[in-house]
C-alpha cells in the first residue's frame, strides 16, 4: 500500500517510518479523536474509512457535519505535526477501519537523524495542506457567492 505522506521514500525508508507506528483497529462507529483533543499522533489509513466532522447546531441539536472523508493511503490528523497540536476536527470510522498511528515525538527524533527523509515528508505534508487550502478557498467563495445572491434576491431588483 502507498501512503500519500510517504511519497518519494524508498521501500526501506517507508518500512523504517512505519516501524515507528502502531496499528490500531477502530470498530465501526468508533471515534479516533475528537475536536480539541491534544494531537500527538498522525494517522495513516490502511483499511476502511475515516469521517472528519465538525459540530453544527441544527434545530437545537448539535450534529456532526461531514467535512472530509479519508480512504486507505490517505493521512488523517496532521495537526499532530503543526502547532498548537490540537485536533481541529473530529474523526470517526463509519465501518471497521485500520490505521497506523505515528507518534509525533518518535517522528521528531527520527527526523533529527534523517533530515533528507524529514524534508521529503515535510514536502508531502505541505502538498496535503496546500491542496486542502485550495479546496476550502474554492468552496468558501462558492458559498459566499450564493449568500450574496440570496441577499440580492431578498432585497428585490436594483433600481
Amino acid at each position, binding site marked *: 500500500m502507498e501512503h500519500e505522506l510517504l511519497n518519494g521514500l524508498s521501500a526501506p525508508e517507508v518500512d523504517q517510518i512505519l516501524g515507528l507506528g502502531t496499528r490500531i483497529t477502530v470498530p465501526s462507529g468508533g471515534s479516533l479523536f475528537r475536536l480539541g483533543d491534544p494531537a500527538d499522533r498522525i494517522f495513516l489509513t490502511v483499511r476502511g474509512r475515516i469521517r472528519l466532522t465538525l459540530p453544527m447546531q441544527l*434545530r437545537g441539536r448539535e450534529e456532526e*457535519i461531514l467535512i472530509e472523508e479519508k480512504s486507505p493511503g490517505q493521512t488523517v490528523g496532521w495537526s499532530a505535526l503543526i502547532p498548537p497540536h490540537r485536533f481541529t476536527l473530529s474523526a470517526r470510522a463509519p465501518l471497521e477501519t485500520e490505521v497506523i498511528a505515528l507518534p509525533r515525538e518518535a517522528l521528531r527524533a527520527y527526523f533529527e537523524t534523517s533530515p533528507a527523509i524529514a524534508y521529503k515528508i515535510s514536502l508531502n505534508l505541505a502538498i496535503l495542506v496546500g491542496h486542502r487550502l*485550495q*479546496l*476550502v478557498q*474554492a*468552496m468558501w467563495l462558492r458559498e459566499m*457567492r*450564493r449568500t450574496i445572491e440570496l441577499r440580492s434576491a431578498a432585497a428585490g431588483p436594483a433600481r
Partner: protein
Amino acid sequence: MEMLLMGLCISVFGFGVAALAFGAATRSESSAPQLEAQPEIRPAVAARAAAPARFFSDRVVPAVPFHSQVPIEVLLHQIENHVRLEEAAAQSFVDFPSLDLLHCKTTSSLVN
C-alpha cells in the same frame, strides 16, 4: 418558358417574404437579452470539457422550502450530499482552474 420564369419569380418573392417574417418574429426575443448578457466573461471551454461534469447541473430546480419540517436525518443527508458535491466541484476547479468551473452549479438539493 414564361411559366417557368413566372414560377421562379413567385418562389423568390415568397422566400423573401418568409425570410422577412421570420426575422421580424425572432428579433424581439433575441436582441434585448443579448445586450444584457454582453458583460459576461466566457472562460476557456477546453477546461470544462476536460473536467468531469457529472456533478454539475445547468438546470435550475425549484427551491425546496428550507424551513419545511423535513426530518433531521433527511436534512443531515442533504447537507452531507451538498458537502460532497461542493468538494467535487472545488476539486474540478483546482484541477482545471477557470471562472466557469469555480461557479458551476451542482445538483445539490440544499441550494437548488
